[in-house]
């Protein structure tokens, strides 16, 4: 996990309006530019400036990791009232950096210095005063603090200058100048400070072959859509999926494509299916409540065998639920939602690069298998940033459709013809000789409505069987095993964003001498039964951690494969803690659980 000893997590904590997220952003961009791998996750309130807590956490490593550390190495307080509850997150001999010259007199306990654990190292500096001296305003407090961190740990000053200039390039030149001045003032102070803590950062790893980009899960989805040649997007805003639409709305017109905000989610999915029927790559994005509205239309995409791509970023539910909290409780809805036997493909990426890949592959699969494809993210994955390195040679297929072969004269084109692979050659409206009926009613080979028993049985079978090929779709990892080979004491089956924490817990368990492996499952439907079965065979105990109350994936696995798993379910609204998974591994391996730090 650590290359050159680098595994550093830095948290900035402030009030909305303090520029907490902005400095976190500069930090992660700068560290990525310097060659490190980064994962970052921000939490901020829905409220307006001046209210609410913002926390920006960035983990910097030599090798890419897919989870945040439970304990932070460095906490920077831009607002003590918000940072105090986070002080206990800082590890022993980690650093807490704060302002020691606040504006107003504080009552006992209001200053963060009174809340540090004895093992934590305090660094106090007059952040506001330094900002005022450097820029004439206190608005550079965040940059002073960032500069101090950079100076204290010897990070590359020039890289920060580049990123600061890039960040403010659309603003008047004075903005870059002031922010740089505030950063430099903090940097000088940090560089002159005596380092008491144990935090250290090694040299960055050797330069990657391809450019490393900092992408969030949602921006990776957008990149995947664009790289796959999306032509039409229809959406209705909803947290945490909105940024997908926001970016597509700016990016698609530049490429001569269309993105449209519809009046609601039903309309968005209907238009997506319509565009798919017309033969263009189209998609929509939503969250759980939006998917609930789309469920009926999804059935049409299944029944009419029309490609459609739906990105779903889960949040706390049901109903309006917890819009700004993460959860994995829409799996059942994604896999089963809707009327009838409406099997579809559901992909759940486990990291940001996976978001890019699944987005692109979703279009290929939707076309190839003539089906809706749901790409299931969650708030944690949508909003977190990672360094992503993809070879420019990796491309998505421009078209995956099994094209219609013109019918011989006198023969009718059978849009729903039975074939060996269950996939019928597909005509696009307007294509000569491709005239056919398309309907949500059950239908025969020609598309003509029918409620005959044998037709419904055959067609149901056809719609299910054609999807079984999806598990062999090229260029995408459906499942992957990590850790110990062969028989293990504990095998962790994990999906979605929780896989990152599961992977880290598995590696820590192995460090403790527990034979352990983890399997990530990316294709949730159709279920890749064989690799999952083999994995379960190799494990004494199977653990399935997921962020939902009911154990939705555990239910699917047990129900499908007819064997039990050990469930670890919780709905805290935040990512699962590595320690919680680790303790469960220890318990299953017959070792003693330890107190979470």
């Amino acid at each position, binding site marked *: 996990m650590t290359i050159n000893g680098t595994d550093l997590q830095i948290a900035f904590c402030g009030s909305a309006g303090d520029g907490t997220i902005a400095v976190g952003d500069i930090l992660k961009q700068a560290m990525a530019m310097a060659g490190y791998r980064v994962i970052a996750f921000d939490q901020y309130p829905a409220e307006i400036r001046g209210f609410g807590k913002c926390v920006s956490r960035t983990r910097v490593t030599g090798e890419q990791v897919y989870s945040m550390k439970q304990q932070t190495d460095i906490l920077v307080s831009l607002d003590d009232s918000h940072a105090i509850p986070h002080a206990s997150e800082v590890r022993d001999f980690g650093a807490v950096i704060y302002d020691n010259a606040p504006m107003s007199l504080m009552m006992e306990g209001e200053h963060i210095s009174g809340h*540090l654990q004895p093992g934590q190292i305090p660094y106090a500096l007059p952040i506001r005063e330094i900002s005022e001296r450097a820029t004439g305003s206190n608005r550079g407090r965040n940059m002073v603090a960032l500069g101090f961190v950079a100076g204290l740990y010897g990070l590359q000053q020039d890289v920060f200058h580049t990123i600061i200039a890039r960040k403010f390039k659309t603003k008047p030149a004075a903005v870059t100048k002031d922010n740089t001045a505030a950063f430099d003032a903090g940097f000088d102070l940090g560089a002159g400070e*005596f380092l008491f803590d144990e935090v250290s950062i090694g040299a960055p790893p050797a330069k990657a072959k391809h450019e490393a980009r900092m992408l969030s899960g949602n921006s990776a989805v957008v990149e995947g859509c664009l790289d796959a040649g999306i032509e039409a997007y229809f959406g209705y805003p909803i947290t945490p999926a909105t940024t997908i639409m926001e970016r597509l709305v700016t990016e698609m017109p530049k490429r001569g494509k269309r993105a449209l905000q519809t009046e609601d989610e039903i309309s968005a999915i209907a238009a997506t299916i319509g565009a798919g029927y017309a033969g263009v790559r189209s998609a929509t994005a939503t969250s759980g409540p939006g998917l609930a509205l789309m469920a009926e239309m999804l059935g049409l995409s299944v029944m009419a065998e029309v490609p459609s791509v739906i990105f779903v970023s889960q949040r706390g539910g049901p109903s309006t639920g917890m819009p700004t909290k993460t959860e994995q409780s829409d799996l059942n809805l994604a896999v089963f939602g809707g009327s009838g036997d409406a099997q579809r493909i559901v992909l759940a990426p486990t990291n940001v690069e996976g978001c890019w890949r699944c987005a692109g592959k979703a279009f290929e699969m939707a076309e190839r298998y003539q089906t809706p494809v749901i790409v299931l993210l969650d708030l944690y994955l949508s909003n977190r940033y990672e360094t992503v390195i993809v070879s420019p040679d990796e491309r998505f297929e421009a078209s995956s459709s099994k094209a219609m072969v013109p019918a011989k004269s006198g023969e009718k084109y059978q849009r729903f013809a039975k074939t060996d692979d269950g996939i019928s050659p597909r005509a696009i409206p307007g294509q000569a000789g491709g005239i056919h009926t398309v309907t949500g009613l059950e239908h025969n080979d020609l598309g003509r409505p029918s409620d005959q028993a044998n037709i419904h049985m055959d067609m149901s079978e056809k719609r299910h069987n054609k999807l079984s090929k999806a598990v062999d779709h090229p260029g995408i990892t459906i499942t992957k095993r990590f850790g110990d080979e062969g028989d293990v004491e504990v095998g962790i089956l994990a999906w979605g964003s929780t896989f990152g924490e599961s992977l880290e817990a598995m590696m820590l368990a192995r460090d403790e001498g527990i034979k352990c492996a983890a399997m990530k499952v990316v294709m949730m439907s159709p279920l890749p039964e064989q690799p999952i079965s083999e994995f379960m065979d190799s494990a004494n105990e199977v653990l399935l951690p997921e962020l939902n109350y009911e154990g939705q994936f555990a239910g699917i696995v047990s129900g499908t494969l007819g064997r039990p798993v050990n469930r670890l379910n919780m709905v805290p609204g935040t990512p699962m803690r590595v320690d919680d998974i680790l303790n469960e591994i220890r318990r299953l391996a017959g070792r003693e659980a330890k107190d979470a730090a």
Partner: protein
Amino acid sequence: MSSAPHLVIIGNGVAGNRAAEILREKDKDCRISIISAGPLLFYNRYELPDVFKGRQDWRDYLENPPEYFSDNNITLRRRSIVADVDTERRKLVLAHREEVGFDQLLVATGGAGYLPERLQETASLTHQFTTYRSAMKMYKALPKGGRVVMLGGDMIGLDLARTLIETGYQVTVVPGDRTFWPHEISAEDRPKYLAALETMGIEVINHGEVERIEDTSGGATARRVVFVSGETVSADVVVTQYGLAPMVDFMSTAGVDIERGLLVNPQLKTTRDEIYAAGDVCQIWEQESNGYRFYYGWRNVRKMGEISARNMMGADVPFETEVDEQLIIKDDGSIDSPFWEYSA
């Protein structure tokens, strides 16, 4: 906040920490806070010369592990400087503008390195050897085998000097009226003690009063000491060791009597019932001499911590020193001092 009395100790040194230990022993429930200007946990300053022997990790100097404070329910507030004491409202005002209430207060702020006025202007060119941080700063500035010019030469400095000699550095002492502080040496005895220093390998020079320190970085050595007499001495590092001056500024409006240190009775109580003082910061009434006097050194200071705490808990024990304050010359010709004695 709980209703248990809040006992606040200002100072994270020997006196303060010993007091906290006794207070917790006597009362399991009271709130105890130690307020400290420094960034570190309580550590052993007496062994700081060891940085020149390769012991450079500050954690090696800790007297207690971090858990000690949590286990004993002692709140330690670091980088918190007391700027003012409002006795009427029983509140401390910290320099970062936070108020902290107290029921009883123990002032154990010790002393800061004393610097004669004429050297204050060039303080940035000289070192002090008082904290871990200052020790490391000096260590980093001093090339292997380099020369240290020590102005003054109090007992803290001379302790450092003997380690420096032992580890291959060169030390020149420029003596003054605070050489051997806190020992008071008569003019008559002085030459024999200075001679003892030379026996220990320390060079002693007598060029009279220092006029200024010059920055000669870039030259062969980084500093030059210029004397009023016009003579000069070059050094890699100049360190000032003129004894300690009690840290009492923040007590100036607290309504307690101050001379140089905080004046306390033999029970270590100040002129206010709820405020005690212990350690290098206080001057204790001595019947015999009919005056107030300082008692220095680990054994005295530790005992003061203990006595003050017991008295804060209602006892009535006077402080009595057990230290024989003689500076002695051993058979091998080197000096030894009770001030150098401590047990880790």
